[in-house]
Protein backbone atom coordinates (compact mmCIF):
# COMPACT_ATOMS: atom_id res chain seq x y z
CA UNK A 1 0.00 0.00 0.00
CA UNK A 2 1.13 3.54 -0.68
CA UNK A 3 3.16 4.85 2.29
CA UNK A 4 1.16 8.06 2.38
CA UNK A 5 -2.06 6.16 3.10
CA UNK A 6 -0.64 4.36 6.14
CA UNK A 7 0.59 7.55 7.79
CA UNK A 8 -0.69 7.52 11.41
CA UNK A 9 -1.44 11.27 11.30
CA UNK A 10 -3.54 10.73 8.19
CA UNK A 11 -5.42 7.91 9.93
CA UNK A 12 -6.20 10.26 12.85
CA UNK A 13 -7.55 12.84 10.40
CA UNK A 14 -9.67 10.19 8.66
CA UNK A 15 -11.00 9.17 12.08
CA UNK A 16 -11.90 12.80 12.75
CA UNK A 17 -13.81 12.96 9.48
CA UNK A 18 -15.57 9.68 10.26
CA UNK A 19 -16.70 10.91 13.69
CA UNK A 20 -17.88 14.22 12.22
CA UNK A 21 -19.79 12.37 9.50
CA UNK A 22 -21.40 10.05 12.05
CA UNK A 23 -22.57 13.05 14.09
CA UNK A 24 -24.07 14.51 10.92
CA UNK A 25 -26.04 11.46 9.80
CA UNK A 26 -26.82 9.55 13.01
CA UNK A 27 -30.40 9.65 14.25
CA UNK A 28 -30.60 11.25 17.66
CA UNK A 29 -33.16 13.03 19.80
CA UNK A 30 -30.81 16.02 20.05
CA UNK A 31 -30.29 16.29 16.31
CA UNK A 32 -29.81 20.06 16.13
CA UNK A 33 -27.07 19.95 18.76
CA UNK A 34 -25.47 17.00 17.03
CA UNK A 35 -25.42 18.82 13.71
CA UNK A 36 -23.84 21.86 15.36
CA UNK A 37 -21.17 19.68 16.96
CA UNK A 38 -20.69 17.95 13.60
CA UNK A 39 -20.12 21.27 11.80
CA UNK A 40 -17.69 22.34 14.52
CA UNK A 41 -15.90 19.03 14.32
CA UNK A 42 -15.54 19.24 10.53
CA UNK A 43 -14.19 22.79 10.85
CA UNK A 44 -11.69 21.75 13.54
CA UNK A 45 -10.43 18.84 11.40
CA UNK A 46 -10.22 21.33 8.51
CA UNK A 47 -8.19 23.91 10.40
CA UNK A 48 -5.77 21.31 11.80
CA UNK A 49 -5.28 19.64 8.40
CA UNK A 50 -4.72 23.07 6.80
CA UNK A 51 -2.10 23.84 9.45
CA UNK A 52 -0.51 20.48 8.73
CA UNK A 53 -0.26 21.25 5.01
CA UNK A 54 1.28 24.61 5.94
CA UNK A 55 3.88 22.80 8.07
CA UNK A 56 4.64 20.48 5.13
CA UNK A 57 4.88 23.55 2.86
CA UNK A 58 7.39 25.24 5.18
CA UNK A 59 9.45 22.05 5.47
CA UNK A 60 9.47 21.65 1.68
CA UNK A 61 10.57 25.24 1.15
CA UNK A 62 13.35 25.27 3.73
CA UNK A 63 14.58 21.67 3.53
CA UNK A 64 13.47 20.62 0.05
CA UNK A 65 11.86 17.52 1.54
CA UNK A 66 9.81 16.45 4.54
CA UNK A 67 9.28 13.33 6.59
CA UNK A 68 5.69 14.49 7.21
CA UNK A 69 4.42 13.15 3.89
CA UNK A 70 5.51 10.91 1.05
CA UNK A 71 7.04 12.35 -2.11
CA UNK A 72 6.59 9.22 -4.19
CA UNK A 73 3.64 7.74 -6.04
CA UNK A 74 0.30 9.17 -7.04
CA UNK A 75 -0.90 9.79 -3.48
CA UNK A 76 1.73 12.16 -2.10
CA UNK A 77 2.37 15.75 -0.99
CA UNK A 78 5.80 16.48 -2.44
CA UNK A 79 4.73 17.23 -6.00
CA UNK A 80 1.62 19.12 -4.89
CA UNK A 81 2.67 21.23 -1.89
CA UNK A 82 6.23 21.38 -3.25
CA UNK A 83 5.20 22.82 -6.62
CA UNK A 84 6.21 26.51 -6.52
CA UNK A 85 3.81 27.42 -9.30
CA UNK A 86 0.67 25.99 -7.70
CA UNK A 87 1.28 25.78 -3.95
CA UNK A 88 0.17 29.35 -3.29
CA UNK A 89 -2.33 31.99 -4.28
CA UNK A 90 -0.77 35.41 -4.82
CA UNK A 91 2.27 34.21 -2.86
CA UNK A 92 0.22 33.06 0.15
CA UNK A 93 0.41 29.30 0.79
CA UNK A 94 -2.93 27.48 0.48
CA UNK A 95 -2.53 26.23 4.04
CA UNK A 96 -2.82 29.81 5.33
CA UNK A 97 -6.01 30.30 3.32
CA UNK A 98 -7.34 27.10 4.88
CA UNK A 99 -6.51 28.24 8.41
CA UNK A 100 -8.22 31.61 7.87
CA UNK A 101 -11.27 30.10 6.17
CA UNK A 102 -11.85 27.40 8.78
CA UNK A 103 -11.34 29.98 11.56
CA UNK A 104 -14.32 31.89 10.21
CA UNK A 105 -16.38 28.70 10.01
CA UNK A 106 -15.39 27.66 13.55
CA UNK A 107 -16.41 31.07 14.87
CA UNK A 108 -19.81 30.94 13.19
CA UNK A 109 -20.52 27.37 14.30
CA UNK A 110 -19.31 28.02 17.83
CA UNK A 111 -21.55 31.07 18.15
CA UNK A 112 -24.53 29.01 16.98
CA UNK A 113 -23.68 26.17 19.33
CA UNK A 114 -23.36 28.49 22.32
CA UNK A 115 -26.66 30.32 21.67
CA UNK A 116 -28.88 29.00 18.94
CA UNK A 117 -31.77 31.30 20.02
CA UNK A 118 -29.81 34.56 19.79
CA UNK A 119 -31.33 37.18 17.50
CA UNK A 120 -28.35 36.90 15.18
CA UNK A 121 -28.45 33.08 14.98
CA UNK A 122 -30.42 32.89 11.73
CA UNK A 123 -28.03 35.36 10.08
CA UNK A 124 -25.02 33.42 11.33
CA UNK A 125 -26.45 30.16 10.01
CA UNK A 126 -26.82 31.82 6.61
CA UNK A 127 -23.28 33.27 6.83
CA UNK A 128 -21.94 29.79 7.63
CA UNK A 129 -23.80 28.38 4.64
CA UNK A 130 -22.58 30.99 2.19
CA UNK A 131 -19.02 30.99 3.56
CA UNK A 132 -18.88 27.21 3.18
CA UNK A 133 -20.37 27.35 -0.31
CA UNK A 134 -17.83 30.04 -1.29
CA UNK A 135 -15.02 27.62 -0.48
CA UNK A 136 -16.30 24.83 -2.73
CA UNK A 137 -15.11 26.35 -6.05
CA UNK A 138 -11.62 26.61 -4.52
CA UNK A 139 -11.78 22.93 -3.56
CA UNK A 140 -12.74 22.08 -7.15
CA UNK A 141 -9.91 24.26 -8.47
CA UNK A 142 -7.34 22.64 -6.18
CA UNK A 143 -8.45 19.13 -7.12
CA UNK A 144 -8.14 20.04 -10.82
CA UNK A 145 -4.66 21.45 -10.15
CA UNK A 146 -3.64 18.24 -8.34
CA UNK A 147 -4.94 16.06 -11.13
CA UNK A 148 -3.74 18.02 -14.14
CA UNK A 149 -1.31 20.83 -13.41
CA UNK A 150 1.34 19.90 -10.85
CA UNK A 151 4.63 18.35 -11.82
CA UNK A 152 4.10 14.70 -12.78
CA UNK A 153 0.29 15.01 -12.55
CA UNK A 154 -2.00 13.35 -11.64
CA UNK A 155 -1.30 13.43 -7.91
CA UNK A 156 -3.50 13.45 -4.84
CA UNK A 157 -2.25 15.16 -1.71
CA UNK A 158 -3.88 13.22 1.17
CA UNK A 159 -3.75 16.01 3.77
CA UNK A 160 -5.10 18.54 1.27
CA UNK A 161 -7.93 16.10 0.54
CA UNK A 162 -8.73 15.91 4.28
CA UNK A 163 -9.14 19.70 4.30
CA UNK A 164 -11.32 19.53 1.16
CA UNK A 165 -13.54 16.80 2.64
CA UNK A 166 -13.80 18.78 5.89
CA UNK A 167 -15.25 21.71 3.99
CA UNK A 168 -17.68 19.51 2.08
CA UNK A 169 -18.75 17.86 5.35
CA UNK A 170 -19.16 21.28 6.98
CA UNK A 171 -21.42 22.44 4.17
CA UNK A 172 -23.44 19.22 4.57
CA UNK A 173 -23.93 19.80 8.31
CA UNK A 174 -24.98 23.40 7.77
CA UNK A 175 -27.34 22.31 4.99
CA UNK A 176 -29.16 19.94 7.39
CA UNK A 177 -29.20 22.62 10.08
CA UNK A 178 -30.85 25.06 7.69
CA UNK A 179 -33.46 22.45 6.83
CA UNK A 180 -34.21 21.91 10.51
CA UNK A 181 -34.46 25.63 11.10
CA UNK A 182 -36.78 26.12 8.12
CA UNK A 183 -38.96 23.20 9.25
CA UNK A 184 -39.28 24.63 12.74
CA UNK A 185 -37.17 21.87 14.31
CA UNK A 186 -34.56 24.20 15.73
CA UNK A 187 -35.00 22.92 19.30
CA UNK A 188 -33.63 19.49 20.03
CA UNK A 189 -36.96 18.21 21.30
CA UNK A 190 -38.88 19.25 18.18
CA UNK A 191 -38.90 16.19 15.95
Amino acid at each position, binding site marked *: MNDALTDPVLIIFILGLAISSYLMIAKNDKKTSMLMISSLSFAVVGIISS*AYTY*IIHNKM*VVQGTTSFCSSEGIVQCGSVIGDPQWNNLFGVPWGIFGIISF*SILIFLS*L*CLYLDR*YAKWSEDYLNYAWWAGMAGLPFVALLVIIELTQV*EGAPHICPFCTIAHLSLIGYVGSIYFLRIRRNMGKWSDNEE
Partner: protein
Amino acid sequence: MARRRKTSAKKGRDDDVRIIAGFVLGSILTVIMLLVVIIAPPATIGPSEGELAPDFSADAYNGVNWQNFKLSDTFDYEWEEGEEGEWILVQFIDTDCPYCWTEGETMSELYSQWSDNVEFITVTVELSINNHNSDRAEVEAFRDKTSYGTDENDGDGCNSGRDNCLNRPGTIHNWNYIEGSSSIMKDWEVTGTPFIAILKPDGYVAWNQYENLQEDIESAMERLVGGSE
Protein backbone atom coordinates in the same frame (compact mmCIF):
# COMPACT_ATOMS: atom_id res chain seq x y z
CA MET B 1 -55.91 46.61 28.76
CA ALA B 2 -53.92 44.94 26.04
CA ARG B 3 -52.74 41.49 26.88
CA ARG B 4 -49.07 40.72 26.42
CA ARG B 5 -48.52 38.51 23.33
CA LYS B 6 -47.40 35.05 24.25
CA THR B 7 -44.61 33.73 22.07
CA SER B 8 -43.41 30.18 21.73
CA ALA B 9 -40.02 31.24 20.37
CA LYS B 10 -37.23 30.69 22.86
CA LYS B 11 -35.22 33.65 23.96
CA GLY B 12 -31.44 33.78 23.55
CA ARG B 13 -29.08 34.20 26.46
CA ASP B 14 -28.52 37.72 27.66
CA ASP B 15 -24.73 37.53 27.54
CA ASP B 16 -23.19 37.82 24.12
CA VAL B 17 -21.59 34.43 23.46
CA ARG B 18 -19.79 35.81 20.44
CA ILE B 19 -17.10 37.20 22.73
CA ILE B 20 -16.62 33.76 24.28
CA ALA B 21 -16.48 32.22 20.77
CA GLY B 22 -13.89 34.82 19.77
CA PHE B 23 -11.71 33.94 22.76
CA VAL B 24 -12.01 30.21 22.09
CA LEU B 25 -11.10 30.72 18.42
CA GLY B 26 -8.20 32.99 19.42
CA SER B 27 -6.89 30.26 21.73
CA ILE B 28 -7.18 27.60 19.02
CA LEU B 29 -5.36 29.82 16.53
CA THR B 30 -2.64 30.69 19.03
CA VAL B 31 -1.95 27.01 19.76
CA ILE B 32 -1.94 26.14 16.04
CA MET B 33 0.38 28.97 15.03
CA LEU B 34 2.73 28.24 17.94
CA LEU B 35 2.96 24.61 16.83
CA VAL B 36 3.63 25.69 13.23
CA VAL B 37 6.40 28.06 14.31
CA ILE B 38 7.97 25.41 16.59
CA ILE B 39 7.74 22.52 14.10
CA ALA B 40 8.39 24.34 10.81
CA PRO B 41 9.01 28.09 11.03
CA PRO B 42 8.24 29.81 7.73
CA ALA B 43 11.25 31.09 5.79
CA THR B 44 11.48 34.65 4.56
CA ILE B 45 11.28 34.28 0.80
CA GLY B 46 12.41 37.00 -1.57
CA PRO B 47 15.23 38.27 -3.76
CA SER B 48 16.88 40.39 -1.06
CA GLU B 49 20.16 39.32 0.49
CA GLY B 50 19.63 36.89 3.34
CA GLU B 51 16.26 35.73 2.03
CA LEU B 52 15.52 32.34 0.51
CA ALA B 53 15.34 32.79 -3.26
CA PRO B 54 11.82 32.53 -4.69
CA ASP B 55 11.46 29.12 -6.28
CA PHE B 56 10.06 28.66 -9.76
CA SER B 57 9.22 25.80 -12.08
CA ALA B 58 9.28 26.48 -15.83
CA ASP B 59 10.45 25.11 -19.15
CA ALA B 60 14.16 25.47 -19.82
CA TYR B 61 16.22 25.23 -22.99
CA ASN B 62 19.46 23.32 -22.46
CA GLY B 63 20.84 23.58 -25.99
CA VAL B 64 19.07 20.44 -27.17
CA ASN B 65 15.44 20.68 -26.08
CA TRP B 66 13.02 22.31 -23.66
CA GLN B 67 12.54 20.51 -20.38
CA ASN B 68 10.96 21.31 -17.06
CA PHE B 69 13.31 23.04 -14.65
CA LYS B 70 12.77 23.73 -10.97
CA LEU B 71 15.13 26.19 -9.31
CA SER B 72 15.00 24.48 -5.90
CA ASP B 73 16.28 21.25 -7.49
CA THR B 74 19.65 23.00 -7.74
CA PHE B 75 19.70 23.82 -4.00
CA ASP B 76 21.90 21.84 -1.63
CA TYR B 77 19.85 21.99 1.58
CA GLU B 78 22.58 20.28 3.57
CA TRP B 79 25.15 22.95 2.73
CA GLU B 80 26.58 24.96 5.61
CA GLU B 81 28.43 28.26 5.62
CA GLY B 82 32.14 27.81 4.89
CA GLU B 83 31.71 24.47 3.13
CA GLU B 84 32.44 23.97 -0.54
CA GLY B 85 29.42 23.79 -2.75
CA GLU B 86 27.94 24.84 -6.03
CA TRP B 87 26.78 28.46 -5.96
CA ILE B 88 24.03 29.61 -8.28
CA LEU B 89 24.04 32.65 -10.53
CA VAL B 90 20.58 33.72 -11.69
CA GLN B 91 20.49 36.23 -14.52
CA PHE B 92 17.31 37.83 -15.86
CA ILE B 93 17.44 39.03 -19.46
CA ASP B 94 15.23 40.12 -22.31
CA THR B 95 16.75 38.99 -25.61
CA ASP B 96 15.75 42.34 -27.08
CA CYS B 97 17.33 44.45 -24.32
CA PRO B 98 20.54 46.18 -25.53
CA TYR B 99 22.24 45.90 -22.09
CA CYS B 100 21.50 42.14 -22.05
CA TRP B 101 22.97 41.93 -25.53
CA THR B 102 26.30 43.39 -24.40
CA GLU B 103 26.22 41.47 -21.10
CA GLY B 104 26.34 38.28 -23.19
CA GLU B 105 30.11 38.64 -23.30
CA THR B 106 30.44 39.25 -19.55
CA MET B 107 28.40 36.12 -18.90
CA SER B 108 30.64 34.07 -21.21
CA GLU B 109 33.69 35.30 -19.31
CA LEU B 110 32.11 34.55 -15.93
CA TYR B 111 31.19 31.07 -17.13
CA SER B 112 34.71 30.36 -18.34
CA GLN B 113 36.05 31.33 -14.92
CA TRP B 114 33.48 29.87 -12.54
CA SER B 115 31.60 27.08 -14.31
CA ASP B 116 33.13 24.50 -11.97
CA ASN B 117 31.83 26.20 -8.81
CA VAL B 118 28.74 27.96 -10.02
CA GLU B 119 25.53 26.83 -11.71
CA PHE B 120 24.53 29.44 -14.29
CA ILE B 121 20.86 30.06 -14.95
CA THR B 122 19.41 32.65 -17.30
CA VAL B 123 15.74 33.54 -17.02
CA THR B 124 14.36 35.12 -20.17
CA VAL B 125 11.53 37.58 -19.73
CA GLU B 126 9.70 39.92 -22.04
CA LEU B 127 9.62 43.58 -21.07
CA SER B 128 6.57 45.57 -22.10
CA ILE B 129 8.39 47.56 -24.78
CA ASN B 130 7.80 47.73 -28.54
CA ASN B 131 9.83 45.19 -30.55
CA HIS B 132 10.50 43.11 -27.43
CA ASN B 133 9.17 39.76 -28.55
CA SER B 134 11.21 36.90 -27.14
CA ASP B 135 9.69 33.76 -28.54
CA ARG B 136 11.37 30.38 -28.06
CA ALA B 137 13.15 30.51 -31.43
CA GLU B 138 14.73 33.84 -30.48
CA VAL B 139 15.73 32.56 -27.04
CA GLU B 140 17.35 29.50 -28.59
CA ALA B 141 19.19 31.64 -31.14
CA PHE B 142 20.35 34.09 -28.44
CA ARG B 143 21.72 31.27 -26.29
CA ASP B 144 23.25 29.23 -29.12
CA LYS B 145 24.40 32.18 -31.24
CA THR B 146 22.58 30.89 -34.29
CA SER B 147 21.13 32.86 -37.15
CA TYR B 148 17.83 34.54 -36.30
CA GLY B 149 16.73 37.82 -37.82
CA THR B 150 18.80 40.30 -39.77
CA ASP B 151 21.44 42.89 -38.98
CA GLU B 152 19.12 45.58 -40.25
CA ASN B 153 17.23 47.66 -37.69
CA ASP B 154 14.00 46.13 -38.91
CA GLY B 155 12.58 44.67 -35.70
CA ASP B 156 13.59 41.16 -36.74
CA GLY B 157 16.09 39.34 -34.52
CA CYS B 158 17.72 40.06 -31.14
CA ASN B 159 18.62 43.39 -29.51
CA SER B 160 15.27 45.06 -30.26
CA GLY B 161 15.43 43.63 -33.76
CA ARG B 162 18.63 45.49 -34.56
CA ASP B 163 20.87 42.44 -34.85
CA ASN B 164 20.96 38.88 -36.01
CA CYS B 165 21.23 36.76 -32.83
CA LEU B 166 24.24 35.06 -34.42
CA ASN B 167 26.30 38.16 -33.66
CA ARG B 168 25.62 38.31 -29.92
CA PRO B 169 28.80 39.22 -28.03
CA GLY B 170 30.45 36.34 -26.19
CA THR B 171 30.46 32.63 -26.82
CA ILE B 172 27.63 30.08 -26.79
CA HIS B 173 26.03 29.99 -23.34
CA ASN B 174 26.22 26.39 -22.23
CA TRP B 175 23.67 26.61 -19.45
CA ASN B 176 19.92 26.50 -18.99
CA TYR B 177 17.81 29.30 -20.41
CA ILE B 178 14.51 29.41 -18.54
CA GLU B 179 11.28 30.60 -20.08
CA GLY B 180 10.36 33.30 -17.57
CA SER B 181 6.95 34.74 -16.81
CA SER B 182 5.46 37.83 -15.24
CA SER B 183 4.86 35.91 -12.01
CA ILE B 184 8.54 34.92 -11.77
CA MET B 185 9.49 38.57 -12.43
CA LYS B 186 7.09 39.66 -9.71
CA ASP B 187 8.44 37.14 -7.19
CA TRP B 188 11.98 38.26 -7.96
CA GLU B 189 10.98 41.95 -7.99
CA VAL B 190 12.64 42.38 -11.38
CA THR B 191 11.77 45.78 -12.79
CA GLY B 192 14.33 45.89 -15.60
CA THR B 193 16.93 43.76 -17.31
CA PRO B 194 19.62 42.62 -17.05
CA PHE B 195 19.46 41.69 -13.38
CA ILE B 196 21.74 39.24 -11.57
CA ALA B 197 21.54 37.57 -8.18
CA ILE B 198 24.07 35.18 -6.69
CA LEU B 199 22.67 32.43 -4.48
CA LYS B 200 24.50 30.38 -1.89
CA PRO B 201 24.41 26.63 -2.55
CA ASP B 202 21.46 26.30 -0.14
CA GLY B 203 19.40 28.80 -2.13
CA TYR B 204 19.72 31.88 0.09
CA VAL B 205 20.46 35.12 -1.73
CA ALA B 206 24.05 36.21 -1.17
CA TRP B 207 24.19 39.11 -3.61
CA ASN B 208 21.51 41.16 -5.30
CA GLN B 209 22.56 43.53 -8.06
CA TYR B 210 19.97 46.14 -7.08
CA GLU B 211 21.42 46.24 -3.56
CA ASN B 212 25.06 46.47 -4.74
CA LEU B 213 25.18 49.12 -7.42
CA GLN B 214 28.77 49.97 -6.43
CA GLU B 215 30.08 46.44 -6.91
CA ASP B 216 30.29 44.75 -10.30
CA ILE B 217 29.43 41.12 -10.80
CA GLU B 218 33.03 39.97 -11.28
CA SER B 219 34.09 41.47 -7.94
CA ALA B 220 31.08 39.96 -6.24
CA MET B 221 31.88 36.52 -7.65
CA GLU B 222 35.50 36.84 -6.58
CA ARG B 223 34.50 37.95 -3.08
CA LEU B 224 31.76 35.40 -2.52
CA VAL B 225 32.76 32.33 -4.49
CA GLY B 226 36.47 33.02 -4.88
CA GLY B 227 38.71 30.48 -6.54
CA SER B 228 38.15 31.36 -10.18
CA GLU B 229 39.87 29.00 -12.59
